[in-house]
């Protein structure tokens, strides 16, 4: 097959989901649930097929191509096109997005069927799939863009979908507004990041005169030599964008709240794909970061700090999805740190495996949640189906879910030979050779990862049921469990992608990223990481499998005391932001709105009016209605005029 023609298929990865959502928008409600779900899944599935075809074509022509579609903005020297880029990096992302995306679509057919009934608005079933397809389209734009600006379209587009899906049950949540608040928070936190990205893009255009990747990156070295400060600014502003989208310190706060969205959303957007966009961006812009060592060290320390910080919080959470959310932040920290160290391939590798096992974990958690929901008595509002303290022993009722969850948890913990072991090990190995400080932080984070996953496994699946609902939980249907099994398979085998010694992924990506010296497989590092993982899991097992009183009290609470309280309360970061940013902003806005705008600026005009009125009041007194006074005034004027005439 002529590969040029094949590459021209690339716009369809965007068009197919758009077609899917259009069909659902127009006919979805008419033809019912199974129609909507099938159309959406089919659209995403076909996008996956296209991605596979592209990947096959790319295997023969690994240098990749750019497929222009249309001009977008043309002003003077500014030319931005709608153009798609097919290279090894973008196709990998496309495969992950559409592959995992398809599985999650299929899963959602079953999950949302229950979810819309549980939340009492069946009409929203179609809307969910419309949003989901919109997300796939936006994500595809993001990863397939040939220039920064088009990528930004996808970048904000996925942010919008994230907003819409977090707020999917917009009338639910704390006080009825909790979910919509969470959605708003996510969008605004992302916008703060986007601000950074926008500034970075302005700097890029002003200095490079283009937004296209090839044109920009080819000049990077020359510009760095010329204006090192500019490059530092670009990379750091870009990092701000990354911290927003990929939930790094200090902008990570939106991600835990984002768990308000339905679980497939958490899996797809807030674990597997969207949040990795930042990592993708930095990998794509690796040519920049390589040139600015200072920026690199900032990036890696941000990543490492996030990895550890989020892991500590994950240890003390009770909400099954919150644990996974903080875990996601932590793992994203690993990826960012990897890219910061220049180990872009390791970062991408971890991105892919993380998409598998974290997607799996979230979906399985969703299965658990719905199992518990099914176990709830009708009208039972006391049980929170996401609270791990009210679970326990679910292994028996939901065997399939248990096994896939176990696989996911082990993969995340980094147990050989599952996917997470290899990818995490590559990052640790990279740190071992170059950045000992980072290595220690990341190793600690890895240990805690294993610990909280052990804790979660025990609390959810082992021991005795701690609530009626948990006792009555039932296994999910095949449409839900099948994607779980496929993902579990991927989580087991994902490590094959970049086995030490073979480095398949590295060789695949080097066409785009250039030759990256793969970190040598260090037996010592692998050993340390494996031991840490086992130690963490074991410790979790030991602490939590002991008999626990009712209601459940975390055994760590006694052992760690105030430290645990801190972790439990997420180190009060939300409260800190509220006190330092949110409330001052509100107060300042209020100050501007009332004392300044109404009190001062509005009064400028009002003051002029009042001055005129006062003057008029004064003059009005002269017009007293007495004809004789008017006569007198006339006489006064006459005298004055005559006097003036005489004096001249």
């Amino acid at each position, binding site marked *: 097959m002529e590969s040029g023609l094949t590459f021209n298929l690339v716009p369809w990865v965007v068009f197919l989901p758009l077609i899917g959502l259009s069909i659902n928008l127009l006919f979805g409600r008419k033809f019912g649930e199974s129609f909507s779900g099938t159309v959406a899944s089919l659209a995403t599935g076909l996008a996956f097929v296209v991605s596979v075809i592209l990947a096959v074509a790319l295997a023969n022509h690994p240098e990749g191509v750019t497929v222009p579609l249309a001009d977008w903005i*043309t002003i003077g020297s500014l030319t931005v096109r709608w153009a798609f880029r097919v290279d090894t990096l973008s196709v990998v992302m496309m495969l992950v997005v559409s592959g995992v995306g398809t599985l999650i679509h299929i899963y959602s057919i079953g999950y949302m069927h229950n979810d819309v009934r549980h939340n009492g608005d069946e009409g929203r079933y179609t809307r969910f799939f419309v949003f989901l397809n919109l997300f796939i389209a936006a994500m595809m734009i993001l990863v397939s863009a040939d220039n920064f600006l088009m990528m930004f379209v996808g970048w904000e587009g996925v942010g919008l979908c994230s907003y819409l899906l977090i707020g999917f049950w917009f009338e639910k949540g704390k006080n009825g507004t909790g979910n919509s608040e969470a959605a*708003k928070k996510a969008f605004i936190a992302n916008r703060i990041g986007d*601000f950074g990205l926008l500034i970075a893009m302005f700097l890029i255009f002003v200095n490079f005169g283009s937004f296209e990747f090839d044109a920009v990156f080819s000049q990077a070295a020359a510009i760095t030599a010329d204006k090192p400060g500019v490059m530092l600014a670009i990379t750091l502003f870009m990092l701000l964008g990354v911290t927003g989208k990929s939930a790094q310190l200090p902008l990570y706060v939106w991600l835990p709240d984002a768990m308000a969205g339905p679980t497939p959303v958490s899996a797809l957007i807030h674990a597997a794909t969207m949040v990795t966009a930042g990592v993708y961006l930095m990998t794509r812009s690796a040519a920049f970061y390589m040139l600015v060592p200072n920026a690199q060290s900032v990036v890696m320390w941000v990543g490492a700090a996030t990895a550890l910080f989020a892991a500590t919080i994950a240890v003390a959470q009770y909400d099954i999805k919150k644990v996974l959310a903080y875990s996601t932040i932590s793992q994203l920290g690993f990826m960012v740190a990897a890219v910061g160290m220049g180990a872009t391939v390791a970062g991408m590798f971890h991105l892919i495996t993380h998409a598998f096992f974290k997607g799996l974990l979230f979906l399985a958690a969703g299965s658990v949640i719905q199992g518990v929901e099914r176990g709830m008595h009708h009208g039972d509002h006391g049980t929170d189906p996401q609270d791990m303290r009210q679970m326990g022993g679910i292994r028996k009722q939901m065997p399939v879910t248990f096994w896939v969850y176990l696989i996911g948890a082990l993969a995340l913990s980094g147990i050989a030979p599952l996917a997470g072991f290899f990818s995490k090990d590559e990052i640790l190995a990279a740190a071992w050779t170059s950045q000992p400080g980072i290595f220690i932080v990341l190793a600690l984070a890895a240990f805690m990862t294993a610990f909280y996953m052990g804790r979660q496994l025990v609390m959810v699946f082992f021991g005795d049921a701690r609530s009626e609902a948990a006792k009555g939980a039932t296994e999910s249907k095949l449409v839900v469990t099948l994607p779980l099994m496929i993902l579990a398979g991927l989580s087991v085998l994902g490590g094959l992608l970049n086995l030490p010694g073979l480095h398949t992924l590295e060789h695949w990506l080097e066409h785009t990223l250039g030759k990256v010296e793969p970190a040598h497989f260090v037996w010592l590092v692998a050993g340390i990481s494996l031991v840490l993982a086992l130690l963490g899991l074991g410790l979790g097992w030991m602490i939590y499998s002991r008999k626990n009183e009712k209601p459940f009290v975390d055994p760590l609470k006694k052992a760690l005391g105030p430290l645990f309280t801190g972790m439990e309360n997420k180190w009060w970061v939300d409260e800190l932001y509220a006190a330092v940013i949110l409330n001052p902003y509100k107060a300042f806005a209020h100050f501007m709105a009332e004392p300044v705008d109404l009190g001062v600026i*509005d009064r400028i005009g009002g003051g002029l009016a009042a001055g005129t009125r006062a003057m008029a009041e004064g003059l009005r007194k002269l017009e007293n209605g007495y004809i004789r006074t008017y006569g007198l005034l006339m006489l006064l004027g006459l005298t004055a005029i005559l006097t003036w005439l005489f004096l001249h």
Partner: protein
Amino acid sequence: MSLNPLLLTIAFPLAGVVVMLLLKAKWKNAIRWTALLTSLVTFGLSLWMLSQFNSASPDLQFEINQAWFSLGGNPIGFHIGVDGISILMVLLTTFLTPLAILSTWKAVDEKVKSFMAFFLLLEVGMLGVFLSLDMVLFYIFWEFTLIPMYFLIGLWGGERRVYAAVKFFLYTMAGSVLMLAGILWIGLQYGSFNLTQLVGSGMIPAAAQLWLFGAFGLAFAIKVPMFPLHSWLPDAHTEAPTAGSVILAGVLLKMGAYGFLRFNLPLFPDASIQFAPWMAGLAVVGIIYGALVAYRQKDVKKLVAYSSISHLGFVVLGIFALNLQGLQGAILQMVNHGLSTGALFLVVGMLYERRHTRLLENFGGLWKVVPVMGTLALITMLSSVGLPGLNGFVGEFTILLGAFGSEAIGSPWFAGVATLGVILAAVYLFHMFQKLFLGPVIHEENQKLKDVSVREILILAPILLLAFWIGLYPKPFFMLMAPAVEKLTTIIQSAALLAQ
């Protein structure tokens, strides 16, 4: 002689008014249809003008110059013409007017005849402003728009309508009086009121440009409105009837920005360069300030009104970037703001028609009750927020890009701070959307609201389609204005070269 499309476009609404005068006041529907058809035909005529327009030429086209009277020996003519900048404004006017008229179908039931007559007269005035090439004629049309708008606010407005109408009138009047002085000074001192003769002639010395820039600039800055001359806007917007708000935000504010483009930049290029950092500074203050104040409003219309201040700040920033990206972005953003904010006001008007309140606290959870309206409102809000893929982004991005690299402004800090406005826009608009459409339905009255009617979809759909078009493929718009804007930048650049 073939028919002149400009003359037809500008005169046709007048014909509609004449027809309407012959109708009895109680034939309300006949009057409404007359007004709607008139405005639709006017739109059609403007499209015909577009089809005849040569977009490759930077020159003024379809010029008419009919001598009228003379002042100080200098002829004043009925001189109209259109170029790539004004044609967009004309199209925006003729596009929004029928939609605004359609939005009054149910909302205005008293004195329909005079309402519609004023509305069409307003259209004539606005078209006149955008087409005039004679300074005195421009001034006449400029002031003429005040009269119908004054009555639209004062007669069909909300509770404080008289206060708002008077405030609107006085503010605008105060500014334009100085402009009149400037016009007369130029005409008598430099011997022409004809814009085509004055532009690029270099007749006006740099020293005189400074105060003339101020005189014209004040009138335009009030109209835009720029911080701190904006305080007429929230009142006028809030009290005006929906259609009035739409036209006010959609077109009337653009007259200010258009004035900068048509007068200040080409007539006073030296002063423009000199004042560019100051104007940009004020624009940035306006962007941030409007966004901050908008966030704390309790009245939806006020919120949107303050958002206009913020958005128009972007337009002014783009204009005074004095480069291609900034100027073209600003012109596009003028159109964008007309569409987005116009649509926002339409949505608010629809809510008001149903609930007779505009306070945020009286709404909530409406997306569940009126899903279609919720979706339309969401898209409108997103276009206003500047989401890529919709119109607002293209304008804002090009403006900021232009301002960031602008030599005239001289520092990227202006654009940098202005970019913060992008965050703040999300803050107040998402806050608004949440308070209106998300969360639970708290008020019993909101449970049974009716979703949008076909008429209301017909109003919003064209706007939103255009929003997508501009967002995804703005090239035709940029192509249309490019030659005229390039000509403008050439004038400014040559002035800058001369000054060195």
